[in-house]
């Protein structure tokens, strides 16, 4: 039986619900993750009366979320990609700031070291300059260790941040598993409470910030989540949430083992890409590890080069120099860059050899030698020349080539000029050469020496480390700008559908208010009609 009263009553109920939904939208306009809700009305089943169907009003169909899975997954993917850049920029910039600043950079320490070497070379007998050189040599060692410490701090920080991200991911997985269980109680998506679905989507967005995920939604609204793509490691499936953990190897900061415990046994997973976690892994493998190993290599190179010079010279006591820096740096890296000498008289500023022409020499020949390789034994011999026998050392003839060059015990000597019969040269340790600066000149010139295989000096090699980290950060900044635009688009697209606009709600409010008033009028009319019937006398 269709009557105005029941149509009116049904309609007022419908519009009361619609108004409630609009009010709810307005109330939740600032709620994070809220999806605008829409009350839909449905016609009541018409009633056949006489020759035709008479409509019997409307009732509330459903309250649905204004939601598009496509928009939502776009947003998730774009925020995964955007999130990758942030740790890269943050930490690579830290490296550049530490290694590139005037106060903590190795460049300054190198400059200071070579500047002191140069000063000492201009007055090698000066005890004050020797002490300055020793101080700056120690300064260089300290700077190496400090930089290593800074990089290690960054290593530790990223390590704990990775652990933190994995803890969040595990927590989100657990929450999602619980929500899945709630959702599984109903069979269709339409029956699910909107707030539960909002909560589900919020968790998925949080997960996507950590790592790129692939989401598969079942008919009831439950979701299965995998890392990266449909074949990636499972994060949440209908039966369980995976527990992730990480292992670190101090010797290899570039490689981080992400372990996924899906079925009770933790196994390595390689499907972590994107998100802040992916960004952290990228930073460690692309920036941190090369920088750390670059610094270690530079420490070894500096030690080797400086020691090679120091050990082929003579110190202030007239003794052959011993290593300035600890050669164990080859095993310990920059952390073990250490000054061995504490006595400034041990600095080998003088050249290794004293070549003395016999005072009785009458010829015009002079003898010189080329640079001496590290590890060469100190020679001690006399070179004699006779017109009849040519050059000889200890009675044995020495072959001198056309350029006057001969090699003896690993050192090349050059005779310039013409000797006279009976001339001799004594070659031995340069014991009385306090004012000799030959070795310290070599030390000062080390600044420009092309010590890297590709012809760079040590200072250039260091600046390249800074530049490389800076390049990665600059690239990441460019990507970030581009990806921010993509994410902004995704947010706008989602918002267009799911966001709450007060203007829209105001219009809806008016619309449903008017409809409600009209429905109430229906009841009024029905009442009047009833009164008119009753009023018949």
């Amino acid at each position: 039986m269709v009557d105005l009263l029941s149509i009116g009553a049904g309609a007022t109920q419908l519009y009361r619900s619609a108004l409630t939904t609009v009010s709810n939208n307005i109330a939740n306009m600032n709620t994070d993750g809220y999806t605008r809700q829409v009350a839909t009305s449905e016609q009541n089943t018409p009633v056949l009366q006489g020759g035709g169907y008479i409509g019997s009003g409307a009732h509330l169909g459903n309250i649905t979320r204004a939601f598009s899975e496509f928009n939502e997954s776009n947003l998730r993917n774009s925020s995964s990609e955007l999130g990758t850049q942030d740790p890269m920029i943050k930490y690579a910039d830290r490296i550049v700031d530490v290694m590139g600043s005037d106060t903590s950079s190795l460049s300054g320490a190198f400059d200071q070291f070579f500047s002191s070497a140069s000063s000492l070379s201009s007055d090698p007998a000066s005890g004050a300059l020797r002490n300055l050189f020793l101080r700056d040599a120690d300064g260089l060692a300290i700077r190496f260790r400090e930089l290593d410490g800074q990089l290690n701090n960054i290593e530790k920080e990223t390590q704990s941040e990775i652990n933190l991200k994995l803890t969040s991911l595990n927590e989100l997985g657990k929450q999602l598993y619980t929500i899945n269980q709630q959702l599984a109680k109903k069979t269709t998506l339409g029956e699910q409470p909107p707030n539960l679905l909002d909560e589900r989507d919020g968790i998925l967005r949080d997960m996507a910030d950590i790592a790129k995920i692939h989401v598969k939604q079942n008919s009831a609204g439950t979701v299965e989540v995998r890392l990266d793509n449909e074949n990636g490691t499972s994060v949440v499936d209908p039966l369980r949430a995976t527990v992730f953990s990480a292992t670190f190897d101090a010797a290899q900061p570039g490689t981080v083992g992400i372990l996924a415990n899906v079925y009770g046994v933790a196994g390595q997973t390689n499907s972590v890409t994107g998100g802040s976690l992916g960004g952290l892994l990228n930073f460690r493998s692309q920036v941190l590890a090369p920088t750390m190993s670059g610094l270690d290599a530079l420490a070894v190179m500096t030690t080797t080069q400086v020691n090679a010079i120091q050990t082929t010279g003579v110190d202030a006591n007239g003794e052959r120099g011993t290593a300035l820096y600890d050669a164990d740096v080859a095993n310990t890296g920059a952390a073990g860059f250490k000054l061995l000498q504490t006595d400034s008289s041990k600095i080998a500023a003088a050249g290794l050899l004293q070549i003395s022409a016999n005072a009785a020499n009458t010829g015009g020949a002079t003898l010189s030698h080329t640079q001496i390789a590290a590890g060469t034994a100190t020679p001690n011999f006399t070179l004699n020349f006779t017109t009849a026998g040519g050059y000889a050392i200890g009675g044995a003839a020495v072959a001198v080539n056309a350029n006057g060059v001969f090699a003896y015990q690993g050192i090349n000597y050059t005779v310039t000029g013409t000797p006279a019969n009976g001339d001799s040269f004594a070659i031995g340790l340069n014991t009385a050469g306090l004012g000799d600066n030959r070795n310290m000149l070599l030390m000062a010139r080390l600044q420009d020496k092309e010590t890297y295989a590709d012809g760079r000096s040590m200072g250039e090699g260091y600046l390249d480390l800074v530049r490389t980290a800076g390049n990665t950060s600059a690239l990441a900044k460019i990507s970030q700008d581009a990806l921010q635009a993509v994410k902004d688009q995704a947010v706008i697209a989602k918002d267009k559908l799911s966001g709450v606009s007060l203007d829209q709600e105001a219009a809806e409010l008016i619309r449903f208010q008017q409809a409600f008033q009209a429905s109430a009028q229906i009841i009024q009319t029905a009442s009047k009609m009833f009164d008119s019937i009753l009023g018949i006398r």
Partner: protein
Amino acid sequence: MKISNAQLFDSSIAQMNLKQSNVAEMQAKLASGKQLVKPSDDAHQAALIQRLNSAMQRQDVFERSLDGADSRLATEETALMGAENLLQRIRELAIQGSNDTLNDADRNIIAKEVGHLRDSLFSLSNTQDTSGNYIFSGTAVNNPAFVLGGDGAMTYQGNQNQTSIDISETRQVAINRPGDKVFSSVARATGGGGSESIGFFKVLSDFSNALTTGNDAGLAQGLTEISALTGDIAVSLADLGGRMNTIDSQRDVLADTKLRYQNLLSNAQDLDYATAVTKLSAQILSLEAAQASFAKISQLSLFDYIR
């Protein structure tokens, strides 16, 4: 297209934050006067600045080396000029002493003066620089160049090494001349047709002896040998002059180089204030525009018109 209120607020806030941080960054640049507030602003530029700083410091080091060499060579110059004058006087005395009209007493007086002059030369040969280094000892700078033996002979105990220092990336200058080249030896013929090397002070002693003993051959030989010694001092002075010229010309080169590096460094690191201030004004204007438009737009609401 629908814009939700949350979206409107969020994007406006993000925009204003961005503009705020631009203004703050420019303010920091203006305050520091540098193009880069921190190295990560531009790693390449930062690396360039470090390299230029290194180069500048190198030039400072070379400048200090030049100063050091200057003072060392000035000491050497004083000693050599003194030695030349003394030797010149000895030579005059040698010519005077060769004069047949002199009697023994006159010659003895001359011999006395030669002895004193020789002692002065001896003390000049052991000149020390400001750091206490014996400048004529070769590299054995901690020992006097010449020592007075028990027999009254003065022998060279330095070595023959010359010390060079770097005064530019490619240029070196010697800062000493071994004493045995300055206070040089002469070759004196021996009876058997050969020759022997006679030390500087021995020549003077022999001459002094020849004066007291009235040995004419000895006097003639002394005159020749003293002339040779004077010649060697003159050579030493010429050599010194050459080295001082090198230092002077290098000073000019250094000044140019420093100026060039200073310009490069200034270009790389100093802020162009005119541009920066203009930029700051533009940024402030754009921030104000964003604030003003947000204030207007955010007031628009349909609810205001529902009565």
